[in-house]
C-alpha cells in the first residue's frame, strides 16, 4: 500500500494556516464512486446474460416504462451511497493510504465502464 507523501506547506497556505485533515473521508467517497460504477457495469452485463437478472432489475420499475435500467441505476446508487457511508464511518478519523484507494477505485470504475460498452455487454446476450 502506498501513501501520498508529497505534502508540503506552500507560502500562500501558511497565511491561512489550515489544520491538517485525515484522508479517510475523502478516500471513502473516491472508493464509493468506483464501486457505484462497477455495480452499474456488472448489472448491465448480467442483464444481458441472464433472464432472471433481467426480470429482477425490471422489478424496480414502478410501472413508468424505464425497464431494467431502473434496477441497474437504483442498485448502483445504493452501492455508491452505502460504500460512502460505511467506509466514511470506518475511516472517519483515519489516515488511510489514499493513493492505493484511488488506484482500486480507478480499476473498479474502468471495469464498470468497459462492462457498460455495448459491444462488450451484447457479447453476453
Amino acid at each position, binding site marked *: 500500500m502506498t501513501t501520498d507523501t508529497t505534502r508540503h506547506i506552500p507560502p500562500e497556505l501558511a497565511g491561512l494556516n489550515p489544520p491538517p485533515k485525515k484522508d479517510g473521508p475523502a478516500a471513502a467517497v473516491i472508493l464509493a464512486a468506483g464501486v457505484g460504477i462497477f455495480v452499474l457495469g456488472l448489472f448491465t452485463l448480467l442483464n444481458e446474460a441472464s433472464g432472471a437478472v433481467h426480470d429482477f432489475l425490471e422489478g424496480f420499475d414502478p410501472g*413508468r416504462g424505464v425497464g431494467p435500467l431502473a434496477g441497474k441505476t437504483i442498485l*448502483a446508487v445504493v452501492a455508491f451511497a452505502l460504500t460512502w457511508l460505511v467506509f466514511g464511518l470506518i475511516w472517519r478519523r483515519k489516515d488511510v493510504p*489514499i493513493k492505493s484507494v484511488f488506484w482500486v477505485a480507478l480499476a473498479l470504475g474502468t471495469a464498470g465502464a468497459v462492462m457498460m460498452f*455495448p459491444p462488450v455487454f451484447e457479447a453476453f446476450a
Partner: protein
Amino acid sequence: MELSNREFWTVVHGLALGTLFLLAFTGGLAGLWSLRPGFLTTTGLKERMTRMYLGTWIMAVTAWLTVISGTWIVYPWYRAQLAPVGDDPFAGCAGAVVPTSTCSPRDFLLSGVSGNTQAWHRFGMEWKEHISWAAPMLATAAAFVVVYYGPRLIGRPWLRAATIVMFVAAFAAAAIGGAFGAFLNKVAPII
C-alpha cells in the same frame, strides 16, 4: 411560441441542465488546474476557493438532476413500445419519417423505415443510458474532495491530479451521454 410537455422536459434535461453542467465544469477545471504553489496569493486563494466550491457542487447537482430526469421522465417516452400490431413488431412505423403516436423513437430507429438507423439505438442509446450515470458519482466524489481539503490541495499535487482525473472523467461520461442525446434527438426526436 410554445413547448409541449415532452419538449419542455427534453429541453430541461438536455439543454438547460447540460449548459449549466458545462459551465460548472469549465469553471471547476480552471480552478483546480491553477491550484498550484506560486500561482495565487493568500487573498486570491480565498476568493478562488469559494468559486471552486460552488462550481464543483453545481456540477455534481446538475449531473444528478440530468440523469434522474433523463432516466425517469424522458427515457420512458423514448422507449415505449407503440408499434407492434399482431406479429409485426414495427407495423405502427410503416411509412413514418419521424416518430409518431404509433411509433416511439426506439421503434422508429429499430424499424429501419428511415434508413440504416438501428445502430443509433443499439450502440448510441444503449451506451448513453448507462455511462451517463458515472458522471454524478464521479462529480460528487470530486466535489467532496475539493470542499473537504480546500486550499490544502495546493500542497497535495498528487491528490489534486487525482481529483482532476475524476472531474474530467465525469465530464467525459456526461459528454458521451450529451453527444448521443443530441444526435438521437435529431434522428428520432421525442414528439
